[in-house]
């Protein structure tokens, strides 16, 4: 038997056994509640998503702020003696002139 014949036969035989579920599917209301969830379960799932998203955003913001603060602190503490030396040498040269 050639593949083309096999394909034809298989398609024909499968066609005979396919159930008709169209009318059943069309009867089901589509409201976003899948997998037979009860309204309470659906509400809880939605609420959980609504709470988790702001919490993640707040957590990331906190990390960014803390990191930024820590990074900013270091050069400020290092800058003090340098500025002092710079101003001192400026003063010294101006006195010489």
């Amino acid at each position, binding site marked *: 038997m050639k593949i083309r014949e*096999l394909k034809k036969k298989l398609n024909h*035989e499968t066609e005979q*056994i*396919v159930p008709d579920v169209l009318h059943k*599917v*069309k009867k089901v209301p589509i409201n976003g509640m899948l997998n037979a969830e009860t309204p309470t379960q659906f509400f809880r799932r939605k609420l959980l998503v609504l709470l988790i998203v702001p919490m993640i955003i707040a957590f990331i913001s906190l990390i960014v702020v803390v990191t930024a603060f820590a990074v900013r602190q270091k050069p400020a503490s290092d800058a003090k003696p340098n500025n002092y030396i710079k101003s001192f040498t400026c003063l010294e040269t101006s006195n010489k002139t």
Partner: protein
Amino acid sequence: MDKSELDYYMTLLRRGDETAFEIIYEKTKRGLFAFILSYCKNYHTAEDLMQSTYIKLRSSIDSYKPGSNAGAWLFTIAKNLTINEVKKNRREVSSDFSEKENEFGEYNMDENLTSPLLKTMRENLNETELRIVLLYLVSGFKHREIAQMLEKPLGTVLWSYRNAIGKIKKALEAEENEN
């Protein structure tokens, strides 16, 4: 059904066109049912899963991206639902062995509802080979698409397909000789 044609009807369904759903259903039902049957061996479970797949298609049509492979998207929904059902059923089988014994493990198809060729294929091919042959010959996917859907290398899919065709031919020849 042509890939772009199916995409067109999916886009129409996304806009709320109910007639588009009927066309999608008519064009995909045969391939989808054969695909589900390759996972579960019970006709009525396959029917329920087919129904769930189309319900899920309608309810999650907003997540469909126009221009993508609509057929693969639909079959992935079917695959995920079927795998979940199989897993769920296995758990139930372990707790209630007597009632669900033959649901997925043993061949439990109503003889009147089975096609003889499909039965021969089931008897001679392993699950993956059967799935690949059905996806290629009945659902009309290309080998590359099948490889993506089943998460297998293209070479494996091609090899399994050729191997399966050889096995089917041999089995059919043997049946003819017997008759």
